[in-house]
């Protein structure tokens, strides 16, 4: 269980959160949505230990996350960042092995069970790419490689910061389907920030709507993404259309 209790956070003397409470549902896909500047990235950073709260508690399985050793935290929580950069050439295989850093000695990177890595490579359909340089891959392939690094950590929680930003529509849906499959097959708890509300409707079990540093609504996608709530918080005109294929948001 990953939870925030009464968390305050400010940045450059500007209050972002005051007494924020939130808990991530285990084994579910939680999506954080909200307009720009609503505090999505800050909440993401607080949950992933990238920022420290001014006061309050953020607990992972009952322990304050800042009392957990960084490598132990990395065994439980993996992150796929919005922008990933390599400063020198690395093959897919070499990069994915880095996901085992929380378990391995820092002086030797070759103690990883090859079966374990092959399983991940096969699951994400990137096994044929394993000896290629990451720089040679397409955006969609690279995103799956970074996901493979996170999965190599064998985490309980997977956090993704706007994972579809740099992907075309085909790869966006392919990637989100892959996340859903991971959640269903392995019971992985997933938390991500998404801008596309239709994707949030389609791929989430729980949606958190943030605005002006407050959680305005939390619940199942259809409970949060309604005409009234979205219009009020995003300042747009929209309607929610229910069809046999699911619920869609249309904005105009």
């Amino acid at each position, binding site marked *: 269980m990953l939870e925030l209790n009464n968390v305050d956070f400010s940045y450059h003397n500007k209050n972002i959160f005051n007494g924020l409470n939130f808990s991530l549902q285990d084994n579910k896909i939680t999506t954080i949505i909200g307009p720009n500047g609503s505090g999505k990235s800050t909440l993401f950073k607080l949950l992933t230990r*990238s920022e420290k709260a001014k006061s309050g508690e953020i607990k992972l399985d009952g322990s304050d996350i800042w009392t957990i050793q*960084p490598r132990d935290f*990395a065994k439980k929580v993996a992150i796929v960042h919005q922008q990933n950069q390599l400063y020198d050439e*690395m093959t897919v295989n*070499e990069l994915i092995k*880095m996901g085992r*850093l929380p378990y391995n000695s*820092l*002086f030797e*990177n070759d103690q990883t069970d090859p079966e374990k890595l092959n399983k991940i490579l096969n699951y994400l359909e990137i096994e044929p790419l394993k000896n290629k340089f990451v720089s040679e891959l397409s955006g969609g392939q690279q995103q799956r490689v970074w996901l493979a690094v996170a999965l190599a950590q064998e985490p309980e929680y997977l956090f993704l910061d706007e994972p579809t930003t740099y992907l075309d529509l085909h790869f966006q849906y392919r990637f989100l389907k892959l996340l859903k499959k991971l959640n269903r097959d392995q019971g992985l708890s997933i938390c991500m920030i998404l801008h596309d509300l239709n994707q949030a409707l389609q791929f989430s079990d729980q949606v958190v709507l943030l605005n002006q540093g407050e959680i305005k609504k939390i619940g199942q996608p259809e409970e949060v993404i309604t005409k009234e709530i979205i219009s009020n918080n995003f300042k747009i005109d929209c309607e929610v259309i229910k069809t046999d294929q699911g619920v869609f948001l249309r904005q105009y």
Partner: protein
Amino acid sequence: MKKRGLWVYGILVILLIGTVYFALTHGASKISYQNLTINNLNILFNIRIPRILSALIAGASLSVSGAFFQAALRNPIADPGIMGVSSAAGLFQTFAMFLLPGFFFGKIAFAVVGGMVAFIFLINFQKKMDPYRLIIIGVALNAVFTGIQDVISNNGNASVSLATSTWQSTLYLAILGILGIIAAIIFAQWGNYLKVNDEELRSLGVSPKQMRIVLLLIAVILASITTACIGVIAFIGIIVPQIGRQLIGHDYQKLIPFSMFAGAWFMLFVDTLGRTINPPNEISAAVLLAIIGGPCMILILLKISGGKNARA
């Protein structure tokens, strides 16, 4: 790749043996087994052997140091010689000549302190700016330290070079340089980790800052010790690792041993070339390396701006 590695190391061993033999027998006076007089033995044991050993260890140390600078600062043209570390070490070593004349270890200790001063500047600027602006800061630091050094040297201080190698300087260089290189081999894998951005490394539970500081410390100590014993030599730390990346790949666990062997050979080759082109006159290794290294640096920059290896 393994087969290629064997070829590369095979050729390096042959080049090393050939160059050592040539360096022993050629110079201001030619020496062969047929004319081993007492005078020639004296030249061999007291001049050429210490000089050859110094060149080998200095070349290995500076190349390994350059590779670690590039890994830690994520910049393919980072080098202790052009970033002010060697010139700071040289300047502080000159201070030691005034304060502790005749105490050789004092020169080394002061050089390391000088290298650390430049290191502290660099590590602080590194937080604030991109790798290329950092290089410009390094060049500026280099100019300042070199300028002060020139003022002091013009007042009568003899500078050190490979030509001034003695058994004493060689012994210090050998012991400290080899210890530094052993540390570099142990920490080589960290160079690979630093290919990944800091945010990702932190989310894997490791500290990029700690890794960067350790690699830079090893690099600074290696460069400072070398500067104390043979003077400031730039560019070898860029040329050798860059050739290594083309020949054996980007894995630092392979690149560091390659830099060690290839750097040792290259420095000896350049020094031997400089003293055998027109004996008894000598062209210093530092000058020859600048002539080769300048164009090499331009080529690397052109390749990077070509896009393939673009770095932020």
